[in-house]
């Protein structure tokens, strides 16, 4: 292909917005009939509490490494006829703001849906990104999430998470 088949980015919310039209354009190609896009937005509530905003913290260098790794894995599974796009917001977002945007373009739609889903699942579970929710009552809390510890690493407590792994909706 003439241009890179994937693009990964972190967008500082103070300077740029996530742009679904740009994602669709990027993953398109004359031979591709299907584009699947996922947009994650800040919700106005979580676990029954009114949310006014969310701050996203990222370990930028490692996050971009992980995005690139994830893209290579999805390419290995669904490529080579595949274009991918990943963008995650950083900073304080208001309700309705776009937090994450992923897209996959492929010749047919089944691969597009599956590749897009694989992208967002991996970004959510494996990238060094943390979400702090701000509540209507002025309180705030960092969300619980997925441990990045190597699962076979004995020193870490990942065998005994406070709740069953990945059954929480995040």
């Amino acid at each position, binding site marked *: 292909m003439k241009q890179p088949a994937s693009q990964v980015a972190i967008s500082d919310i103070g300077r740029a917005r996530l742009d679904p039209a740009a994602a669709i354009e990027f993953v398109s190609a004359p031979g591709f009939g299907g584009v699947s896009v996922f947009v*994650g937005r800040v919700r106005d509530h979580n676990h029954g509490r009114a949310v006014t905003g969310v701050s*996203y*913290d*990222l*370990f930028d*260098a*490692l996050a971009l*490494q992980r995005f690139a790794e994830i893209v290579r894995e999805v390419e290995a599974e669904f490529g080579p006829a595949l274009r991918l796009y990943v963008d*995650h917001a950083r900073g304080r977002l208001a309700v309705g703001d776009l*937090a*994450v945007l992923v897209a996959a373009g492929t010749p047919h739609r089944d691969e597009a849906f599956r590749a897009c889903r694989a992208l*967002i699942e991996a*970004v*959510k*579970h*494996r*990238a*060094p*990104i*943390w*979400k*702090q929710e701000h509540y209507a009552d002025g309180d705030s809390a*960092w*969300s*619980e*999430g*997925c*441990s*990045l*510890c*190597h699962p076979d*690493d*004995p*020193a*870490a*407590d*990942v065998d005994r*998470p*406070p709740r069953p792994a990945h059954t929480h909706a*995040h």
Partner: protein
Amino acid sequence: MRVELALFGAFRQFDPGARIELELVNDARVADLRLAFAGYAAAHWPGFSPGLLARSAFASEREVLRESEPIPADRRVAVLPPVSGG
């Protein structure tokens, strides 16, 4: 050796600069850093939860480190609580 530890997510709330320094033995491994950090946090941070650290990973800018690995040559490590992107 002196290790610079960057704090992310829930760890940020304990230190305004989100960065602490820890003194370790010269051939220290990630497991030693974990112990030293646990000691530092217990001594300096009221309200710190050891449970959070137990589920946290240590990483360089390129990868998550295993407990048995040596501290990276540049002595810069990040401690990563469970992630919640998206």
